[in-house]
């Protein structure tokens, strides 16, 4: 299981690269073409279903309406799309941050010590496949609030890629680098800051990039359960209000924000890739 996740990481890395948009040149052109295909398929489906699924045009009209006042606030269950998005992002960052704070040190321990690996790996393998929805009641019980529970499920489901990549990064430090530490008598702190962390940083960032993707995916499910405010709640609320246009808008916004988050971590990856420059 440990290995298969790494494999996925590798494929994703290659795969994602080709999806990342560059502002300049042909990449941008391809991106626009790709969007055109999306619109085309969408329009086609709308036509086939006889507008039971709204087409791009009618959705655009609702979108304009929503964007006219994105940050309005009319009580707990009636907030602008901007507000919904912001509160979702905030939760994602809390959950993701919390998860990373657990994942990175644990990953360092697992990668650096064979005992740590043997002790913690079974735990990781058992907890990792658990669905975020299964964790939710436990979160409610522990935090006594839906918001707390949402942050909890984001943390616990998004920490695994970071943990596994960190552990892999540390475990793969070449003997050459370790020997430098031995021969020149590095203290534990110096070894951590000058060898272990710099070497595994690209792996850690790859993990973080996968984790933020998971976190962003989980938020929608979490908020559908928790209600209140957030983009996931917005989807649920729109369904109850039978506004399919709003659901489609939410889907597109979720996709776009996910892409931007990924772009951000991609640029971090490039900034810290000592091995590629």
């Amino acid at each position, binding site marked *: 299981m440990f290995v298969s996740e790494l494999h996925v990481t590798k494929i994703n890395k290659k795969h994602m690269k080709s999806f990342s948009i560059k502002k300049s040149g042909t990449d941008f052109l391809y991106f626009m073409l790709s969007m055109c295909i999306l619109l085309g398929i969408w329009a086609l489906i709308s036509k086939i279903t006889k507008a039971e699924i709204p087409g791009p045009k009618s959705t655009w009209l609702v979108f304009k309406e929503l964007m006219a006042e994105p940050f309005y606030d009319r009580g707990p269950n009636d907030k602008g799309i901007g507000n919904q998005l912001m509160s979702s992002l905030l939760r994602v960052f809390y959950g993701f941050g919390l998860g990373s704070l657990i994942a990175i040190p644990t990953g360092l321990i697992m990668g650096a010590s064979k005992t740590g690996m043997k002790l913690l790996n079974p735990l990781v393998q058992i907890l990792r496949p658990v669905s975020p929805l299964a964790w939710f009641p436990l979160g409610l019980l522990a935090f006594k609030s839906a918001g707390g529970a949402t942050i909890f499920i984001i943390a616990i489901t998004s920490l695994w890629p970071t943990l596994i990549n960190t552990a892999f990064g540390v475990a793969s430090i070449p003997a*050459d680098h370790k020997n*430098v530490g031995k021969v020149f008598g*590095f203290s534990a702190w110096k070894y951590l800051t000058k060898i272990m962390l710099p070497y595994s940083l690209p792996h850690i960032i790859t993990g973080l990039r996968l984790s933020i993707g998971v976190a962003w995916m989980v938020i929608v499910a979490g908020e559908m359960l928790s209600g209140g405010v957030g983009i996931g709640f917005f989807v649920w609320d729109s369904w109850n209000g039978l506004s399919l246009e709003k659901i489609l808008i939410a889907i597109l916004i979720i996709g776009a924000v996910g892409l931007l988050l990924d772009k951000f971590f991609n640029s971090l990856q490039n900034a810290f890739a000592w091995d590629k420059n």
Partner: protein
Amino acid sequence: MLLHGTKTKIMINTNCTEDILDEVNELIHAPAMETAVDIRNVTVSFKGKKGVYTAIKDINLAIYKGEIISFIGHSGCGKSTLMNTISGMVKPSKGEVFANGNLIKGPGPDRGVVFQNYSLLPWLSVYKNIKVAVDSVFKQKTHEQKASLIERNLKMVNLWEHRDKLPGHLSGGMKQRVAIARAFAIDPKVLLLDEPFGALDALTKSSMHVELLKMWNLDHREKTVVMVTHDIEEAIFLSDRIVVMNNGPEATIKEIVELHLPRPRNKKNIVHDPAYMEIHDRLLNLLIDKFSIND
């Protein structure tokens, strides 16, 4: 101590006239010479899946202070293993190794290592690669003392202008020089070089030989240099003694060849020296001998 004093005086008073260097050479080979590294009855076995593999067996060797000694032998015969018992990265299964009078229990800054593959930290600049080592070894020195130490060593290998580059942007020869500067900067009594010039082209290799000897001279020839090499010419040009090893498993020392070639040695002239040619032939025979046994 007396000996030590005499030698230093010779070095200061003369500017490398050959007779006196001969005298220094004599001193180096005098049996009363201080022992820098003492390898006693060392056997190293590795436990593998297919059982125990004994790489080297019952090795005895005293390496003198200030000498340059080379290990030569076929690939896989255990040169690196023997070297690593001195660096402290391999523990002998039997026997002990002493460095500067102390039993070796692990790696330490009294023994500088230049690894076969440079082993620079790729995320640190040339300067910082040396700085981490210096910071780690000389905890008491002031910031200024350390800075001047790093500067001196980088200038010695002509890399001061390249100090801000990352190792990935350097050529093999430059990386090697950084590794050597790093080993010299921590001022070890014993310098261990494992095939340090193996990956270099002939020209760079030659200039690195000269560079190494220069540094050794600048240090009044007090550093002990232990080197592993594949290259007979290199071994002869640099060494005072050459240790020829048998093939493994259970490799032993086949023969120790003493060189009485005067220093400073000149790369171009030395090859015409009859003594050089004799040693070259002898080494070649010792090494080729093994082929015929194997075949």
